[in-house]
């Protein structure tokens, strides 16, 4: 026989409800990976046109990557880094020089540099 009534028990239940267990980011990622793997993808035709386009581009993540790549491409064309031919500049000025190289004269020693490595002769 105990004097533990419903109200007292309810305090415990309330404490449990107030302390929900945490869902780890890892679990969430696994569940979303499953969703991605199982999602029917062949239904673009059923979507309204704006949703279909959104899906095609891969949503916000896809579009931001595309926009970044396009912006970089434009920048490289306008202001090419050293070592890259300024094709756009040549095109605009009309001096479209095509260099022919006599392969016998080409220095076959290749420098490994500029890739973020410094390979030093030891």
């Amino acid at each position: 026989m105990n004097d533990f009534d419903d109200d007292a028990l309810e305090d415990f239940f309330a404490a449990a409800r107030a302390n929900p267990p945490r869902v780890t980011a890892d679990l969430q990622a696994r569940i979303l990976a499953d969703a991605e793997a199982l999602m029917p993808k062949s239904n673009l035709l059923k979507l309204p046109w704006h949703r279909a386009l959104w899906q095609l581009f891969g949503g916000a993540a896809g579009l931001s990557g595309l926009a970044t790549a396009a912006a970089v491409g434009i920048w490289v064309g306008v202001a090419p880094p050293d070592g890259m031919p300024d094709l756009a500049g040549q095109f605009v000025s009309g001096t479209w020089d095509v260099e022919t190289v006599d392969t016998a004269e080409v220095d076959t020693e290749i420098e490994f540099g500029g890739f973020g490595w410094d390979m030093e002769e030891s």
Partner: protein
Amino acid sequence: MDGMQNLSDDQRDADAELLQRYATGDAAAARLLTTRLVPRIHGHALRVLGDRAEAEDVAQEAMLRLWRQAPEWRTGEAKVTTWVYRVVANLCTDRLRRRGAGAAGLDDVAEPADPTPGVTQKMQQAARADALQQALATLPERQRQAVVLRHIDGMANPEIAEILGIGVEAVESLTARGKRALAAQLSAQRDALGFDDE
């Protein structure tokens, strides 16, 4: 399924709408559904199984079955939550039976309380949540599931009946017996927890 309540026209199941959008290739719908369902089913599985790893497996498996079910889902039949909870309950029962009687896990369920001074109430709450979890672990599996569904997940008896595949009276019996057993356990621990009459 037998006993599943049909939804009336004005009872739109937001989860079902999300599920159907997912089935047409809407990945954002899956993220939303995950946010809505997983904390609840993971929390339920953790309280019933007392083991984090197993609870995560159950949650992942239940959602996997939901994703698979999505193309077949028809509105107006079961609620998505009822369906998913039913899968979770069955998965939990399987695991508990495989474990054998008396092998209750006791992983920490609640987040640890902040020990800074002045948060006595928070500590008391965390201690109560822990004590409840320990007491739950001593209940037979069906009583445990029924009590968690009713008093922590906040489900009504008819829905619990659908989830557990039993009648409403059986649910009431399970919760009554479960609460009596919990009360006995917690009463014995009360002095150790330092509760005064509040």
